[in-house]
């Protein structure tokens, strides 16, 4: 793809090197979490089943948005959880 207009949606990153910290950055199940995917600005609903969702935090500088499926919106979290709402322009 040619040089794209970059999105205004840029996720923040927290540098860390321990295995646990790295694991915590990735999407994982955490029952009762205070920072569930359902309340994260990077989450969009599943195309079919409203009980699931899609994570859109993985954004390549070249413009790709690599989604991940979220099985359990209320009990899944990751280290890049953030609040707010993105514009439709920032989604796929």
């Amino acid at each position, binding site marked *: 793809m*040619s040089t794209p*207009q970059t*999105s205004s949606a840029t996720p923040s990153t927290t540098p860390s090197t321990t295995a646990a910290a790295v694991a915590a950055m990735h999407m994982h199940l955490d029952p009762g979490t205070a920072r569930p995917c359902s309340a994260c600005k990077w989450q969009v609903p599943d*195309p079919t*089943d*409203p009980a699931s969702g899609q994570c859109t935090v993985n954004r390549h500088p070249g413009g790709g948005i690599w989604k*991940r*499926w979220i099985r359990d919106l209320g009990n899944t979290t990751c280290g890049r959880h953030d609040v707010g709402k993105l514009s439709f322009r920032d*989604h*796929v």
Partner: protein
Amino acid sequence: MNDMTVQYSGKVLAFTPEDPREAQIPSDELHEHLQDPSTARTSRLKSRCRWKHASGGEFVEKGVQAGIERMRLITEAHKASVGKPEVIRRALMLSNFLTNTTLVVQEDEFIVGYHAEDPNMFPLYPELSYMAVLDYLKTDYAPQPAAEAADIVAYWKPHSLQAKCERYFDPVDLRRGYQVSTMEGPAFASGYNSIVPPYETVLEDGLLARIKLAESHIQEARAEMGAFPWNADAGLKWLDKVDNWEAMVIACKAVVAWARRHARLCKIVAERFESDPKRQAELLEIADICQRIPAEPCIGLKDAVQAKWFTFLLAHALERYASGYAQKEDSLLWPYYQASLAEGSQQPMTHQQVVELIEMERLKISEHGAGKSRAYREIFPGSNDLFIATLGGTNGDGSDACNDMTDAILEATKRIRTAEPSLVFRYSKKSRAKTLRWVFECIRDGLGYPSIKHDEIGTQQMLEYAKYSKTGNGATPEEAHYWVNVLCMSPGLAGRRKTQKTRSEGGSSIFPAKLLEISLNNGYDWSYADMQMGPETGYATDFKTFDELWEAFRKQYQYTIALAIRCKDVSRSQEIKYLQMPFVSALDDGCMELGIDANELSEQPNGWHNPITTIVAGNSLVAIKKLVFDEKKYTMTQLVDALKVNWEGHEEMRQDFKNAPKWGNDDPEADDLIVRFYEEIIGGEMSKNTNYSGGPVLPVGQAVGLYMEVGSRTGPTPDGRLGGEAADDGGISPYMGTDKKGPTAVLRSVAKVQKNQKANLLNQRLSVPIMRSKHGFDIWHAYMDTWHDLNIDHVQFNVVSTEEMKAAQREPEKHHDLIVRVSGYSARFVDIPTYGQNTIIARQEQDFSAADLEFLNVDL
């Protein structure tokens, strides 16, 4: 001004604008200067148009909301009709809605009728997919009051088409379908649908005649059942027929009454509230039309357009949801155009008034919101829904079907400049030059349509499919000429009978790029869903030959396509039982004659399924074969490891895979394998499946916006693509930016794919200066004749500069009239997410070199 020149045939061709005034328009805002509504009224209507574009799963415009009236009124009727035959319940649901719904008549409009209680709203369909409606309840545009909406959804869940169908599937298979990554979600889980309504019957007969016909059939049936001797086999067959005919009567009477409610409303407004004498007279004229139409046959073009509009609302939004605007619009309206322009007409009009009327119709469509599921609010970014009407082609006797109505529609389209409805033009060497010039002017104005279909290919397909007719009453050679695009791409019959009534017959998608990804990983989706998505066909790191990978892909494809078509036919079986369409059935001559519902009767098979993202898969297979198996430059383990880390640390390898031969350059090193891929697997395996109608299912290569969604759910691929990047943007289109050998090389590649295909979408982006120069039409015409002679099914064009699109990204509020062709439909560019906008910017802008002009044999 531009300084582009080409040396050709002993001349130096310059591409200065054909209209010299354009030299004064900045090139990054050209599209803002192209609209030219034919009257002040259509200019006003466009300014206040209540667009309902969806994008990224949401609505772009503020204030768009789901209505509750349809849900409420059908639920009331459903509860009150327990114990009655299901088809009668369906008719009573429609009747209750039409009798009690709020009517909408807007200021300034001439064509009246709306499908929800407020022009900012759209209806919902709890009887179709419970998941789709549950999704709405969680949004900012949920129907209100919320508690009532929740109660309605809860009531319908067990009665919904989705619930009826789900029980026939293994939960594992269902979950895989719901992902929308290897296949489009089952239509029973989204509610998505398409139809080709028999408009001709309404305009020609009127509904009172259809009521009378159904009543006479009921009388005949009762006489037969009452005769001596009684024979159970013959006699009992009448029961369902009587129910179907009775339901047709209920539905048609309700429709006539609903139209006449509009007549009364317009009369009341004219007599009591309107002070402008001109508008008063107009409202009384509308009242007269709605009193007669669609009860009686149409006498002129105003009648015909109003009757068609009411029928559209019923078939696409009120009786059941359906996407689309399928009709052979020029042929359908031509008798009424002639009636209105004839001397002494009962409904006189001039050609320019016809143009204005069509502009108004186009704006009605532009306001038509659809209560679609989230998946479909994602995949047509920048548009309301898919609306595609068909023009041109040839008549039953082989003569040119273009006429002055064709030209009026095209002129209105160019002038009013909306993204919807899209148009398809059936290109024939017989198409008259005058109409071709209009087609070209719409295209060069950057509307992205008409998209072009090969007239003879479509006609021949109708004849081929007719051979499989279960009733022995498939398309005749004359009927085979009367076809339209059912949605974006697939031909289907139009007319009074044998048309496609449900998407379960043909439609929905499968995604080869994702299937290729899981074929490398034992059928496991590591990049999006983290689950097993298909059969365990082995790990590519264990494959010793390319053929093992080829066969692994085949197995994944076989599993998924069989599941996808099974979903459609199971849905069909339940639609027949619970989703009857008595109004549409009343219009179909076959349904009326035989007393069979429109979902059940199949006289003309039209099975198809859309492969989307085929070229990412094809290019990937080419790269793997070359670099892993032929040249052995990399091992499969090295490749898979690089993919798992999104090529990070493997940029040189990624460039090797990216630079491997690509589709669309007339390069045998890519084309030989990809042609085999299309014909042997994509089409060859699909065609082994037989659908409800008894015919084969054939591929219609497509994309809409699914190439973006599926791209975002697909990890990195061996064509050099990064994870989450968009996939290829059309069924047979080269991947964005990789068709580097000019537009005729693309045609030569595409022409090689001929076997086992129904249709294949080809996106091409043409140079703005070339198309808008005085040579533009001649070059385009020569291109089209060559395309035709190469027996290519389809092509559609963007004619828009990168400069203008980037300006629109910076200042979207200044570029509301910039329209682009996404794929199969057009959209307002500024209403597409940035991700999607960038894919259109990335498309190769095709110049025409001297070699291209020679190949096309352009006479300049």
